[in-house]
């Protein structure tokens, strides 16, 4: 093996260790009994591994509830995003109407606006409509997504126009073409977008902090905060167990969808 290659792999390995270390430490602490966590010497592997911390995290705190909220909120957001974006992206890619170019330009421009800029007006609007502190408040602001619209439009634009016409000749409505022809053909892109969306909203702390105060509505990251402040205080064992539980679903989902994910990002065009 050439020295350059060894150096490259070495650097990559170092990077991987740096990124993974906090997670490894988190899992390690979550498996240690209380007495073993605060010791003068550092040991990565627990001497007497125990699941006690997980039992406490799951029974003494509302982590199951937070996880459920996370699923409801990210799932609700994703479904709404797709329900809105697929027909809109189809129209932008394959329908001719006045102002189409302008509209697509607006979508691209909207990509540049971070959510934090619009968060305040959205918050005020929701306050006026008395929708704060509800699942609606957590889900609705993300239903329209410029990113998803852009990604899907680009994927749909790759679909040959003759295929769309074939759907029309076969008797499909425009909506049916969007869902039965365009959507399945753009599935790699849809999955890539789904992973982006779920990851972003599962991990989002900013908006749940603003929009909800009811602990029963807390999403996982928001929940962990309650946990640290009030409920388990200075007990890092259950805290780390909780953090592991909150992180695990995403990591698992990524591992399962890894191939699709890289495919969706790498494929520039649809294979016929």
């Amino acid at each position, binding site marked *: 093996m050439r020295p350059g290659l060894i150096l490259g792999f070495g650097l990559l390995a170092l990077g991987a260790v740096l990124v993974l270390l906090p997670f490894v430490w988190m899992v390690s602490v979550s498996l240690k009994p209380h007495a073993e966590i605060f010791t003068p010497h550092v040991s990565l592997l627990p001497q007497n591994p125990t699941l006690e911390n997980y039992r406490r995290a799951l029974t003494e705190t509302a982590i199951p509830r937070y996880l459920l909220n996370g699923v409801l909120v990210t799932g609700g957001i994703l479904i709404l995003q797709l329900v809105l974006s697929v027909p809109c992206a189809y129209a932008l890619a394959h329908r001719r109407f006045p102002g189409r170019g302008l509209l697509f330009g607006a979508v691209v421009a909207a990509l540049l606006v971070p959510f934090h800029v619009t968060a305040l007006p959205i918050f005020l609007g929701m306050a006026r409509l008395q929708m704060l502190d509800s699942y609606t408040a957590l889900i609705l602001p993300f239903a329209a997504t410029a990113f998803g619209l852009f990604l899907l439009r680009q994927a749909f634009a790759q679909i*040959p126009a*003759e*295929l769309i*016409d*074939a759907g*029309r*000749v076969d*008797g499909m409505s425009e909506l049916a073409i969007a869902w039965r022809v365009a959507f399945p*053909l753009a599935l790699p892109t849809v999955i890539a977008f789904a992973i982006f969306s779920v990851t972003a909203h599962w991990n989002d702390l900013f908006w749940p902090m603003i929009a909800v105060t009811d602990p029963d509505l807390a999403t996982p990251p928001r929940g962990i905060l309650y946990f640290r402040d009030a409920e388990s205080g200075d007990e890092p064992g259950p805290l780390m167990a909780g953090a592991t539980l909150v992180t695990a679903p995403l990591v698992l989902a990524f591992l399962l969808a890894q191939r699709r994910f890289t495919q969706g990002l790498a494929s520039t065009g649809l294979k*016929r």
Partner: protein
Amino acid sequence: MTAALALDGVTKRFGDTTAITDVSLALGQGEFVALLGASGCGKSTTLRILAGLDRPSEGQVLMQGRCVTRDSAAARNIALMFQSYALYPHLSVYQNIAMPLRLRHLSVAGRLPGAARFSGAVRRTREDIDAQVRRVAAMLRLEPLLARKPGQLSGGQQQRVALARALVRKPAAFLLDEPLSNLDTQLRADTRDELRALHRDTGHAFLIVTHDQSDALSMADRVAVMIAGRIEQIATPQQLFHTPATRAVAEFIGHHRMNILPQGPAAALHPAGKGLDLGVRPEDLRLQADGPLQAVVRSRAFHGEETILSLQDDRGTALRMVLRGGSALPLPGDSVRLTAPPEALHGFDACGLRQQVLS
């Protein structure tokens, strides 16, 4: 006889450009018509208007004498086979063929998986669809391929699937966009025969759009020649070849472009040449020692069965002639004398319209 499908004075404009102008075309019941034209002449636009994918700017589309100009493609029940075949890549061959029938005969609820278990009507419709799909698949020898995806098929197989999908719904008219252009030479010849047979067996009205005159002349009952957005002539292949109505058609039809001798010098060949341009096909020119036309051989190309000579006559007109057999071919630079039988001459007036040449 009312036409299965007809265009009446159709014009289509895209912005400032006019794609087709005042096109009238009738497709009779059970007739096989070819729409022939060079690429970009407007034949695809014509096809899309016939199919209902585009609306004409002016004029009407008629089916059985009824105006369907504003009806959608599906409402017209016209089948269209696309040049790229446009098979749904994510569906199996069976699902591709069944799609038009499922959309036509099953409601949204009826298309749900398991719906047949709850409704006898849905079950009967599905069995009916299944029978029709299998009938068409058998006709086109697709049974062993029904479970495959289009990506796993060869070009010829994909084309048969596209044909099956178009035929399965018993269409009022069947339009084919360049059906042979993606096939290699051997398959082309076979597919021509197959399309003719399919037309005979199904009895549907067929319209094929093609840029290849051999396809059009060999398959169709009638050929419509389209040049620059207008239909120049609609006639049987024989009429088209032997009595082209305009100079443009005469120059377009035929493997070798027709020679046109301009009015005046053409009189050397025939007295009618005083007032008319005279056309003569390269196959009809003969070498003759005392022929009326003098020309110099510029080059010679050997094509196996035939040899093509490029010549220039004494007035500077470029001529081409096709010689069969290899005996005594003139060499480049040779001076030769040519003649053509009067019945092989085509006279065209200053407007390019055909005029009788008396022999």
